């Protein structure tokens, strides 16, 4: 990756070389700090679609040069979810240009709009919608320009592959039209959007633009950057959260081969060297040498759920309808647990930072370049303008992993070694031990059925920490900042409000429950470091609710699929369920071989985004409790499908990842610290344990809003597994993960 080029390729230079006449950069309204996903509308701006709300100028999104090249800007990041390809499709469709004519520029605080975080499956809703509309409006402008040029009424013109064609056969190319023009104008309230039935690019599976590079070893990742003069650095993390560095003799280490500098600021300790392996060896020597005062212990893991449950909580009733106390003929109650779980990126987090002439440039795989810039500025005590964050792909993160922390590490080290680009990558043990985990969760469900087997009352309580400790300004959200000589305090955690919700995401059932009460118990105190992981609270809440629905169906002697349909009005919800029922060949009380079970589950992510239903088959080995996953069939409704194969890829991934979380995964710790520190102490699913097959059926809804899909599969997969284990063994397991030991204990001899 050619870093210097990246630095110098500023917006203005790009324009100068590109020849288009786009005079200035449309700055996003300041203070647009994103909650997990939620984009606050900037005061005063009209309610424009998607992120046009916060970045209304057309040239923040689209630039066109005299050669007919189109550059599309997004504030979102490519995280491996394939967003680049889908956004290019949106622009190509509405601009009527060929996809190869488009260059996409992703999140960069000096080039792209501020779209907050790439999270909560919002990218298509925010950025996709904005680009779709901006592109349509730019096409409109080009057609008007052509109308004047050819002096014909606009309605006798139409756009086609980078040109405007007149009915009389004349045509003028975009590149002629843009010369001397300027898209630096606010987007209009309405866009001349195409009729979805006429789409030729959107809705077609398009090979992802990034895959050829990824399978041939192109420098795609921040890990692959090696600008001239770059040094490799490693950070020595303390033995546990509370530890303080008391003593250190760096003399011998500074003499080690390749070592350039040992950087220390309070309890933040790092070493920079010429070679990466030299840095790693120096790291080991340093950590052998460092003396720590180990204060602060963790709660007893044996009783962690009671411990967390007993912590003070702020309670909010997020649903209250009818008479929740209502009694039916049959009442059920159940409690579900989800342990701390790890993002477990395959590539430990990495960043490259350069401190030069008072300016800090950071190449990072953060999910939010703007919020990270603001937070780094706070940590470095410099104005925002002196920090430039450029998003470069990293290993998949699935939420808030150490991406932002390592950017802070790199910045601190770079500040101590001005003029040299500093590449920092975390060690595996630190990625597992220090990343913010997905919070432990507890939920309690109670419901009663009437004699017709309908749910008459519903009570659901969920206890959780925050699911969002992402950097948003105050430096205390960055790990290193808490260990400096002048440490920054960790900011108070905030809940993510409904309707999206955090710990209570998907806490409200989509099912028809006349009398219902749902209470969200937000626990501010965080015994372990936590933040956002794919699906947030939805993973546990859908696991709980969809398990409980099966328990109710069982009590009502009803088929679980029919029981769900019995309580659902939303036709799109019913459609995905019926699609899966039919494609899977779900039969009521199917006769299955001994040890085999079937499970079904459904959810609409956040009750706002994509719909997803899953049916699966699995075998439980009676002697060991081992689960063998059979075929998995799923249907998803993401509204207008932009890149169907991209959606399939995402859902397959969610299913496999959730299977791993749900069967194996649990962060372990003792009183002194985290004990799951690598893949041997935090095992995840390997090839031999993969499902026999995963079939994804997409219900396309041309013309409907884009619905985020990336996180839709997580919750349903967990519940489908638990329900299938019940059908295979008669044992209802309400604690995640459904490990072989837990299953064996439940089924007994």
């Amino acid at each position: 990756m050619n870093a210097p080029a990246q630095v110098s390729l500023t917006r203005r230079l790009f324009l100068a070389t590109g020849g288009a006449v786009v005079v200035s950069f449309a700055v996003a309204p300041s203070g647009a700090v994103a909650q997990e996903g939620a984009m606050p509308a900037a005061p005063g701006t009209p309610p424009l679609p998607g992120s046009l709300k916060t970045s209304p100028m057309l040239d923040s999104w689209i630039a066109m040069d005299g050669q007919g090249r189109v550059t599309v800007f997004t504030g979102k990041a490519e995280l491996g979810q394939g967003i680049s390809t889908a956004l290019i499709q949106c622009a190509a469709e509405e601009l009527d240009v060929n996809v190869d004519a488009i260059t996409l520029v992703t999140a960069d605080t000096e080039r792209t709009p501020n779209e907050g975080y790439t999270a909560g499956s919002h990218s298509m809703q925010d950025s996709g919608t904005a680009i779709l509309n901006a592109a349509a409006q730019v096409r409109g402008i080009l057609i008007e320009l052509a109308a004047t040029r050819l002096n014909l009424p606009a309605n006798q013109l139409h756009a086609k592959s980078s040109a405007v064609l007149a009915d009389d056969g004349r045509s003028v190319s975009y590149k002629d039209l843009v010369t001397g023009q300027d898209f630096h104008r606010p987007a209009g309230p309405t866009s001349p959007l195409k009729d979805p039935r006429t789409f030729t690019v959107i809705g077609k599976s398009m090979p992802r633009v990034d895959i050829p590079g990824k399978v041939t070893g192109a420098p795609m990742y921040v890990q692959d950057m090696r600008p001239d003069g770059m040094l490799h650095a490693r950070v020595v993390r303390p033995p546990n959260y509370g530890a303080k560095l008391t003593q250190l003799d760096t003399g011998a280490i500074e003499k080690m081969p390749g070592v350039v500098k040992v950087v220390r600021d309070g309890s933040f300790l790092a070493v920079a060297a010429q070679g990466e392996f030299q840095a790693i060896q120096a790291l080991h020597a340093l950590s052998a040498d460092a003396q720590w005062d180990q204060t602060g212990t963790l709660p007893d893991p044996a009783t962690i759920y009671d411990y967390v449950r007993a912590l003070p909580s702020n309670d909010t009733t997020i649903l209250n309808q009818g008479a929740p106390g209502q009694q039916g003929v049959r009442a059920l109650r159940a409690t579900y647990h989800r342990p701390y779980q790890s993002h477990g990126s395959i590539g430990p987090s990495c960043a490259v930072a350069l401190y030069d002439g008072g300016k800090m440039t950071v190449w990072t795989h953060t999910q939010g370049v703007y919020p990270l810039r603001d937070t780094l500025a706070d940590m470095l005590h410099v104005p925002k303008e002196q920090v430039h964050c450029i998003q470069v792909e990293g290993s998949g993160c699935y939420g808030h992993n150490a991406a932002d922390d390592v950017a802070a590490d790199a910045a601190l080290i770079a500040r101590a070694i001005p003029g040299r680009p500093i590449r920092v990558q975390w060690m595996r043990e630190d990625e597992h031990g220090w990343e913010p985990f997905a919070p432990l969760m507890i939920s309690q469900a109670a419901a009663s059925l009437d004699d017709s087997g309908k749910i008459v009352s519903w009570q659901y309580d969920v206890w959780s920490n925050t699911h969002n400790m992402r950097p948003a300004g105050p430096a205390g959200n960055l790990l290193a900042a808490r260990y400096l000589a002048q440490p920054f305090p960790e900011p108070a955690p905030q809940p993510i409000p409904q309707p999206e919700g955090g710990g209570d995401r998907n806490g409200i059932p989509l099912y028809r429950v006349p009398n219902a009460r749902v209470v969200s118990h937000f626990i501010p105190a965080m015994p372990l470091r936590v933040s956002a992981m794919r699906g947030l609270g939805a993973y546990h809440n859908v696991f709980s609710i969809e398990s409980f629905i099966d328990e109710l169906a069982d009590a009502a002697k009803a088929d679980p699929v029919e029981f769900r349909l019995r309580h659902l009005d939303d036709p799109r919800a019913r459609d995905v369920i019926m699609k899966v029922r039919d494609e899977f060949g779900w039969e009521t009380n199917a006769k299955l071989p001994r040890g085999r079970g079937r499970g079904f589950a459904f959810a609409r992510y956040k009750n706002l985004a994509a719909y997803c239903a899953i049916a699966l088959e699995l075998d439980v080995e009676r002697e060991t409790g081992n689960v063998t996953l059979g075929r998995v069939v799923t249907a998803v409704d993401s509204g207008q499908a932009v890149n169907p194969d991209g959606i399939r890829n995402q859902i397959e991934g969610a299913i496999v990842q959730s299977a791993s979380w749900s069967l194996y995964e649990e962060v372990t710790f003792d009183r002194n610290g985290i004990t799951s520190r690598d893949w041997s102490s935090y095992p995840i699913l390997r090839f031999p344990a993969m499902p026999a097959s995963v079939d994804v059926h997409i219900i396309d809804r041309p013309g409907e809003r884009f619905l985020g899909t990336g996180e839709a599969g997580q919750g349903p997969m967990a519940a489908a597994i638990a329900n299938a284990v019940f059908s295979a063994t008669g044992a209802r397991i309400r604690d995640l993960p459904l490990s072989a030991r837990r299953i064996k204990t439940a089924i007994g001899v």
Partner: protein
Amino acid sequence: MIVLNINGNPEQIEADPHTPLLYVLRDDLKLNAAKFGCGLGQCGACTVLVDHEPVFSCLLPISVLEGRYIRTVEGLGTADKPGPVQRAFIDEQAAQCGYCIAGMVMRAQGLLEHNAAPTEAQIRDYMAPNLCRCGTQMRILRAVRRAAKAMTASLDPIHEASK
């Protein structure tokens, strides 16, 4: 100084003999495919081929590699002219973040050089050392099956192509 045969080219390496191959590939030879995932032999992100055997380059000092035939993804093909296994991964769109993929491609290549027509179980067992967190495994399995077909179909078997 040690001379290594990387993708058929003799490379003169100045690094200490005990330096693991991974860091020499990335730092000295500027080859990006092999990745640091754990440095502990647990994930396979660093997988390369040595004499047709997939190995973890993070745990293999260059001192043991003189005179041996080392291959990385860069040696299998390019984005314009991908090798058969790379081609299959592209055709199956078998990547999400892609961080694990170079290692997957090399292990798959190793499998097919040993066994041109592996069974599903053989593929899954052979690929077991390599981890993918994005959940791309179902596509990777499809890609390996596709590559196996392509290989048995073509007159020019993969290991010929890759020599």
